[in-house]
């Protein structure tokens, strides 16, 4: 079980919850379960979500493990120049 923190707009789409407890071993499983348990998040996942694990931002490595006790923070997928 990991605790996931959602950014403001995402929290609103999850029923005004900014922290969620999810049983997930990696980012892929996290997204799957978020979409199952909080359907309002699915459009955001489709649009792109990045996951910060202990401050390091992962955009595409869905196989990245979610260590117990790590700070897991969801962010919008970033654009760059």
């Amino acid at each position, binding site marked *: 079980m990991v605790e996931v923190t959602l950014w403001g707009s995402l929290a609103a789409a999850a029923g005004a919850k900014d922290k969620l407890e999810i049983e997930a071993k990696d980012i892929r499983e996290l997204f799957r379960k978020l979409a199952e348990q909080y359907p309002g998040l699915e459009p955001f996942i489709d649009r792109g979500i990045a996951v910060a694990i202990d401050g390091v931002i*992962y955009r*595409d490595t869905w196989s990245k493990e979610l260590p117990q006790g790590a*700070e897991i923070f969801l962010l*919008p997928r970033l654009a760059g120049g």
Partner: protein
Amino acid sequence: MGFDPRYLERNFTSVGTRPIRPDGLDKVTGRARYGADFNMAGQLVGAILRSPHAHAKIRNIDTSKAEKLAGVKAVITSADLPDLTDGNSEMYAILDNCMAREKALYDGHAVAAVAAVDARTARKALKLIEIDYEVLPHVTDVDEAMKPTAPVLHETVFTEGVEPKPGKPSNVAKRTQYGHGDIEAGFGQADFIVERSFKTEQTHQGYIEPHACVANANSDGTAELWVCTQGHFVYRQHCAELLGMEVSKLRVTSSEIGGGFGGKTHVWAEPVALALSRKAGRPVKLVMTRDEVFRASGPTSATSIDVKIGARKDGTITAASATLRYSCGPYYGMWAELGAMTAFACYNLENVETVGYEVLVNRPKVAAYRAPSAPMAAFAVESAVDELAKSIGMDPVDFRIKNAAREGTRSSYGPVYGPIGIGPTLEAARNHPHMQAPLGKNQGRGMACGFWFNFGGQTCTDLNVGTDGSVSLAVGTMDVGGSRASLSMVAAEELGIAYEHVKAVVADTSSLGYNDMTDGSRGTFSTSLATISAARNAIKVLRERAAQTWDIPVDDVAWEKGHAVAKGEKYGNLPALSLKEIAAGAGNTGGPIAGHSELVADGAGVSFATHICDIEVDPETGATRVLRYTVLQDAGKAVHPTYVEGQYQGGAAQGIGWALNEEYIYGKDGRLQNAGFLDYRIPVCSDLPMIDTQILEIPNPNHPYGVRGVGETSIVPPLAAIANAVSNAAGVRMTHIPMSPPRILATIKAEQAG
């Protein structure tokens, strides 16, 4: 076993040196081939008809007269680029921007295009296209567009991110919010509060090379595209999706790039060129004029930002908030959101809140510009921070050091930071001789900090060892700042050979696996990871070949300084085999030797910079002169320090232009008044001092050499550093970018008038 990207301290041989850039001679002698330099036999000239109206319904387009003109081979409208985006709003925006459908949404919006035997005929044909417009009210100002009385661009847009969902359509496409703590309680603890509003005008990335391509659609359904781009694989994807093609049937070859800075991260005219070629059955060359580049491609947002920051007498910030309104052009973006995320990222704040509004206006579709959205937010925040430090009576550097984010700080955008470089850049600034240099009359010094995320992405690289022992490296990220040299240095470092024996090229889309866009400061970070991985895979093959040659187990063969070495006393009489010797014998040990890598580069590591600037202001004219400029930034590890310094200097130069001169000026008719470099003034050499740089190297733990991206952060602090310098020189707070002479003079006179 997968590639391990973790940082390991080591001594470098190639990395950190400064070899002459391999592409330099071609570029300075004119041999380098840019987008407009490619030609095909029988090619036609493409030209685009653009809306003269800021906002107009397209009632009818009659192309019949143009089609009948001798020499015209194809005329297209949106009917030739039907909507195949299947509900993907981002792709639909790109499609609609390439060719307007029901409405023209800005001055310069493409409405039709022709392909003809020469440019004169093409231009003549454009004049023969008859369009029946119903001109609609328009809005180009970000604040005006938010008013309830403003003309609404899209009846289908209802503000996202607000509850309850609005019942009326609006130009405010989205509201986003970031932060933590209790800002009201925080402001209640403050002894000093600064609250100000700021504006920044729209600027263009100002790349010298315009958008240019040659498209050739074949009768068998395949096509080729030669194009200037920051990401030919993404251009392939976009074009294939918009034209209903299989991606593998479209081969895209990138040219040299004369600047992109985010403006060449999605397609503008390329699908139009392909559609023209498909209709005409001949190759089509399409090159935007400078007027078109300004009117119809890539500007950044105009902004309107309110900032409030409070601090105790001891200099501790107790609360900070900002409301950021960013123009997006006619299509939704995440520009204000990026401003909201980055605004206070340099600071350790208990109570912080930022709110962003994405605002639709009748201006060109906004594109990323180097650390998109962060410079404007930093301008507002760093101006207020400077003013607050003054109110308290603290040195602005000491005030920032006291409040700087550090390892373990919860960032204003959410996550807790790992090891970061804001503190070291501030300390370096405090100790830099620039901070102690004397100033004369009407001269002022300013400094400011900046933050950018950096990211990685999908990356694929091939490394081939030639039979003579030279190495070719095929990469899929564009060389926007010298990466072919840097990546060759990385390959040389890993293989243990001389840099001169490695040649890197940017491969076309049919020769290499998919690579993401070259953006987010990712080119050297991502592709050096893939290059190290590919080199290690090649070394594995080289060791196997040496083992075969010696007829010993491969586990007994090590790779040291470019040689296979048999380990153990029993092999004491075996001389080491060089890469060159192994390559020469490859034909009899299993054939070609190569290393391949495909990976997702994540963990780029966030980036910080501090800039110092001295400005002289003429109080009679408002004219400014940049006297001295210093950039201090963390690079993780500078692979080629000269290129890193070039990135620092380039970002500062663009920031100086943005801060002092550059500005989109619209008339009351909603038309752009200054679509050319004569009236839109970017800085030239005589406007700039030598920009000093100091590279800090705080290793990125997620890269074997510690590399971080360096391309974008350097444009974040300049607007604020220059505004603080001008404010100090003129004795009045500047709140509107650009600080052009008339604007400075008006501010000085207003202050004098009380």
